[in-house]
């Protein structure tokens, strides 16, 4: 299981701000210590890293069982859980904290959620607070927006992110726009979440990546979670945010296991996460591709490269600070994403980096995305549509030669 190094890079930024309520953020300065083969890694509260290289990080691209390293961390505080349980924990904590938080979606109540994220919540909070809706995405998303305008804080679950295409009207026209067109009179503190991404032979319609379709909508924020730690943190932050937030989960990551702290914490919605600091190349990724990247990183490290891996987490807006610092250090950028090539998050990110950090680049930005193909059912074909670790290794090698 991957241990995650949390960067608190923007803590400095936050502490300098006076113009907004920083009480909202519980970004405590975290010190996480992890023991690896002889090297100790410390993350200071001001974001600076100390100490040297890390030899081995990940054993699986998608971890489905507890790593043996977990045994050695048994004495650490915190509790272990799977990603979907982390999401549920975050959701439950927020529902306890604020009675206006409610959940709406198909099969979220009695069924417990198609991926069990809301299991046990309906018996605890009642059928109105965890609302089983009919199959009418456009209308129940609009209903959530109307409820948000009149004082509630709803969380809309799309059974599969792809179903939210039916709600595109409400998400684009109402969710994103109403705060602006009402002149700031109404806020829409809604969270829209659900599993997306390419799964195991789910077919084209159930393997969609909607982040590229939603990214142009003004007025919304998009985040993608990738570990139990940031899943819970982002869920809580999204619920507390006054902005409409779309939280992208991934179908294949729900069974990731990790040890997370017992005490309450929130992840910053606008920040990226430093997964593995390095010197030679910046690899930007998010969601499931993070694990493909880390698997490739294992190979790369053995070949003598030192990649810096950043999980961008915030798909809209981009954390240009973390990304920029990395680019200034390594001068080479590789973006690895699951979105399709055309008009994906990678395309926007490439443009943003070129615009802001062009002088710091020694080589053109390379973006590895999924092919512009409706995801095929056949396993072999499906494998070819998404980016695999071997491609990442090749791309890094090519980039570093320039």
């Amino acid at each position, binding site marked *: 299981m991957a241990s995650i190094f949390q960067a608190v890079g923007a803590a400095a930024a936050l502490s300098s701000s006076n113009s907004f309520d920083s009480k909202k953020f519980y970004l405590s300065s975290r010190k996480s210590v992890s023991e690896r083969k002889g090297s100790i890694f410390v993350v200071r509260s001001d974001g600076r890293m100390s100490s040297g290289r890390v030899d081995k990080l990940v054993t699986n691209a998608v971890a489905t069982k507890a790593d043996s390293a977990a045994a050695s961390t048994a004495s650490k505080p915190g509790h272990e859980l799977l990603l979907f349980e982390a999401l549920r924990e975050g959701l439950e904590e927020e529902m306890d904290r604020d009675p206006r938080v409610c959940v709406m979606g198909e099969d979220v109540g009695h069924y417990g959620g198609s991926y069990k994220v809301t299991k046990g919540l309906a018996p605890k909070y009642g059928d109105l607070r965890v609302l089983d809706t009919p199959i009418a995405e456009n209308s129940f998303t609009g209903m959530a927006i109307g409820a948000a305008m*009149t004082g509630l804080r709803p969380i809309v679950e799309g059974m599969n992110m792809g179903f939210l295409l039916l709600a595109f009207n409400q998400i684009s026209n109402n969710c994103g726009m109403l705060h602006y*067109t009402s002149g700031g009179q109404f806020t829409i503190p809604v969270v829209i979440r659900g599993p997306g991404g390419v799964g195991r032979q789910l077919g084209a319609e159930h393997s969609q990546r909607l982040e590229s379709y939603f990214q142009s909508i003004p007025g919304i924020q998009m985040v993608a979670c990738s570990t139990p730690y940031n899943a819970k943190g982002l869920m809580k932050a999204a619920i507390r945010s006054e902005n409409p937030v779309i939280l992208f989960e991934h179908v294949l990551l729900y069974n990731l296991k990790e040890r997370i702290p017992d005490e309450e914490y929130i992840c910053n919605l606008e920040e990226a996460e430093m997964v593995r600091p390095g010197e030679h190349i910046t690899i930007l990724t998010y969601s499931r591709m993070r694990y493909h990247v880390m698997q490739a990183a294992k190979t790369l490290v053995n070949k003598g490269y030192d990649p810096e891996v950043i999980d961008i987490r915030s798909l809209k807006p981009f954390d240009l600070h973390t990304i920029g610092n990395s680019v200034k250090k390594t001068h080479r950028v590789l973006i690895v994403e699951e979105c399709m090539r055309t008009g994906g998050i990678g395309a926007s990110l490439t443009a943003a980096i070129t615009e802001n950090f062009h002088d710091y680049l020694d080589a053109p930005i390379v973006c590895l995305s999924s092919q512009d193909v409706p995801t095929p059912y056949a396993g072999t074909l499906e494998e070819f549509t998404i980016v695999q670790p071997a491609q990442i290794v090749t791309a890094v090698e090519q980039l570093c030669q320039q």
Partner: protein
Amino acid sequence: MASSFSAAKITQPLPLNTTTTRSPDNPLFSSFKSAPPASSFLGSTHKLRIQRPTSARAQTRSGTVVAVSDVVKEKKLKSNAPTSNLLITKEEGLEVYEDMILGRAFEDMCAQMYYRGKMFGFVHLYNGQEAVSSGFIKLLKKEDSVVSTYRDHVHALSKGVPARAVMSELFGKATGCCRGQGGSMHMFSKDHNVLGGFAFIGEGIPVATGAAFTSKYKREVLKEGDCDHVTLAFFGDGTCNNGQFFECLNMAALWKLPIVFVVENNLWAIGMSHLRSTSDPQIWKKGPAFGMPGVHVDGMDVLKVREVAKEAIGRARRGEGPTLVECETYRFRGHSLADPDELRDPAEKARYATRDPITSLKKYMIDSKLASEAELKAIEKKIDEVVEEAVEFADESPAPSRSQLLENVFADPKGFGIGPDGRYRCEDPKFTEGTAHV
């Protein structure tokens, strides 16, 4: 519900109180003999629009069937003296009259201002439909919500948004109810609980359903036991063929939400006649299909609308669930100020002009000695001044400055993200000036 093909005969289209057909086509639809109402809904089940009932209507669901307020009409005609069988008191009558005059005067002024180049874009005027707005909205409390469409000026005015705020918004000034950012089709007011103003048809219905959901949630989850806020959703005949309409009828009936769905059936969706686009043009019938009462009412008669509205809003307030009210009404102007309005039959327009809701109410008030001509004239004069003042106010108001551009994109401006320098972009002075690129 039996399908319309169970009718043995196909009858001619139903005229409305006249003998001529109301569209060039001869649409097919069956008529029926309606079952007696199962609830306390007003009115007889007689024909308002049915010529020859030909087939028995099959049993409907648990919701009640049609109520047509013929009884109301008869009651109105009979009363000549200001006794207790009048439908409205003097105060109520004057309030409603003033509201309708305000709506009409305001919309007429909008047309003038548009042609003088003071407002732009798509402006949809409400002339002729005032009875629906005044009939319904004047029965609401301040905490009740109204959700409308792009034809929303008068709904906002009836709910209490000051005329100067609406006019200012139309002129695109910073003092408008939405700071000039919404425009004609997006009238919002948090103070008066006007939840918009939506440009796409059908888009507001789920939002209204959500507002009704909040009311129920407050009562049952947050234990604010006295929360009985009602939401009214106004929309047109064209919207009744849209999926969002049906989805929301289902959800509202399923959860017994305190909402009233008010259909302003003015027979035309821009240039598309309702009869040409709808397999069963009787919209009120779609209510019982989802388990809620469907009511048809003469939307040119504010007193009839008011009676039906009282019942429907009362139902919602008591927690008995939603109602679908179809108001048969008509817009005297084109769809918008850009519409040449060439398609509609002039005879049809003339027919409806004789049923102008304002003149009807005026006649009723004078005939029943509720008010004198002078009193009503005084109201008209007062409203003229209000509208003039609104135009003056809007004219003199400043246009939004550049600094306003980025202010309301996010409720929490941290949503613009972290800039390359590590600070939140919203702290950049260019953001407060409105010159930054997002």
